[in-house]
């Protein structure tokens, strides 16, 4: 059983995940960020692999990615940072990156490195389901890696059911038709969408992301789903307050 699966078997409500871009604000902040998030009660952590052309990301994550790349971050460095944390960090880590990074690195090599670092879950926003089924599913399975799929307000019921069937991680419920970025409150329309998904009785754990930014949006999302992911708001926080203040960010949300 993967770390994420055992987490989900123990906890089904108010799951909090936090996303950060590896290499931001500083190249070697990875360890401190992960340990701070873990010790303050974050349930699982998404590690973003900075990319030059992050199509699904808004200005905040774009900016953190450029800074990380300027800091010299690359996949080899990330993997060596994560490997060093393998034994001390118990919180499930999820890697989020774009397909071209993995293609260029070598798909098998990437999977082997994930395995070496104890990474069992990946999110690749520009890897569509059909390409996954035709070219990646077998490979990922061989290395014990689960792929997370996204659904949006526009995803058809039929497609959601299919995703529910082939996924063995969680379903990433994109909160609205938009790129990543901190937004204000959750609208009536979004709640209706969450309710529609909730009523589908899917087998997968449902985690909301894109636009979840504070206690209030987190709580609203958790009324309908198993948990939520905070990304851009955390990156903005790191930019303003710095790594040392992370405990206050997390407690503010889960208090």
């Amino acid at each position, binding site marked *: 059983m993967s770390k994420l699966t055992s987490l989900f078997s123990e906890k089904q409500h108010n799951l909090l995940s936090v996303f950060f871009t590896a290499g931001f604000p500083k190249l070697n902040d990875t360890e401190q960020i992960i340990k701070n998030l873990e010790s303050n009660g974050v349930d699982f952590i998404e590690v973003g692999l900075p990319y030059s052309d992050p199509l699904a990301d808004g200005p905040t994550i774009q900016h953190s990615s450029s800074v990380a790349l300027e800091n010299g971050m690359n996949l080899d460095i990330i993997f060596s940072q994560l490997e060093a944390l393998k034994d001390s960090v118990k919180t499930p880590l999820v890697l989020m990156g774009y397909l*071209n990074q*993995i293609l260029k690195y070598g798909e098998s090599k990437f999977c082997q490195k994930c395995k070496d670092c104890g990474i069992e879950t990946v999110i690749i926003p520009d890897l569509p389901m059909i390409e996954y089924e035709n070219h990646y599913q077998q490979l990922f399975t061989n290395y014990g890696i689960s792929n997370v799929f*996204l659904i949006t307000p526009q*995803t058809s019921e039929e497609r959601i059911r299919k995703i529910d069937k082939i996924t063995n991680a969680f379903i990433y419920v994109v909160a609205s*038709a938009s*790129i990543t970025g901190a937004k204000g409150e959750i609208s009536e329309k979004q709640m209706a969408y969450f309710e529609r998904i909730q009523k589908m009785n899917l087998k997968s754990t449902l985690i909301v992301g894109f636009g979840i930014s504070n206690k209030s949006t987190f709580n609203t999302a958790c009324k309908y789903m198993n948990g939520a992911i905070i990304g851009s708001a955390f990156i903005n926080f790191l930019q303003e307050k710095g790594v040392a203040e992370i405990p206050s960010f997390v407690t503010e949300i889960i208090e």
Partner: protein
Amino acid sequence: MSFFVDKNGYYGQFGGAFIPELLYPNIKELEDNYLKILESDSFKKEFKELLDNYVGRPTPLYLAKRLSKKYGAKVYLKREDLNHTGAHKINNTIGQILVAKQLGKKRIIAETGAGQHGVATATVCALMDLECIVFMGEVDIKRQAPNVARMKMLGATVVPAKSGSKTLKDATNEAIRDWIGNPEDTYYLIGSVVGPHPYPDMVARLQSIISKEIKEQLLVQTGNENPDMIIACVGGGSNAAGAFYHYLDTKNVQLIAVEAAGLGVHSGQSAATSQLGDVGVLHGSKTILMQDKYGQVIEPYSISAGLDYPGIGPLHAFLHERERAVFMNATDQEALDAAYELTKIEGIIPALESAHALAVLPKMKFTTGQVVVVNLSGRGDKDLETYITHLKDE
């Protein structure tokens, strides 16, 4: 072997639709409908009428006598520069705006590099009374100022792309991000044979009017519809795809694709993708792109904003891999020289992009009587400032 797209949206290993789930419904809608629309009688009729009476097609195929004499071949120029708005780009925008209308879309978004596609999009939006938003790199906004003014006059909103290299690739990223945020009412009118399937195939089909006319015109002018060689510049590759299209299966017609070498292929300031790139995913398509060891996209450079792109369309990646087309390149200086030459001896000021195609003529060894078609993709009005600045240094 077929050089046309297969039923899964691939050209060999290239192509596909590598898009976030957020765009799946949009792409699916287009994929399910584009052939039906393109092949319908009503589309064909309206497309032809607009091309004939609004764009000014067919464009002439002109035997450039002094150029021919100089290079020792029969050099024909396919005069896409004479199209309304000054480049081949409008063939595509006329076609896609009809597709967008058929799909009931109300808001049109586009990316642009040189501004030619932006102008061509703003033009068809004015014609069809549709809202138009054009994303353009901040750097390109500065170097193509006349086209920015034209787009605004045509009623379009020009949004500066401030991320990355602030050129065409980033304008494309911004357009895709906008589409993610507006999945229902918005149509993304892409400007070249790039992007996720079905765009590369759709744009190639719409531009294929170029080679259709070349065939008819050559038959009349020379008695043979096949030239020995066709030369076209490649940014994303739409004018080249159009000029090659009806010759792809005719093996004895040599296809020459010319990329921008900037300050020199290996100078670190270049956009010669086929020489510097390798397989990867860019803007939703598996193709050849310029990237570093970790798959980060390398920012290209060319004096020509329309060729300043780190990838090529998947069709061209395939033509390159299978050696169906020969990929050559021209530096900034070679392109400038070719532009000054054409202006002086034929009285035609070409676009900087098209000047790259002309710039390989001196590198060829022709035999007398060889028939060569150069696709003159656009006119040089937008590049006058660059031409004037560099003329002083000549």
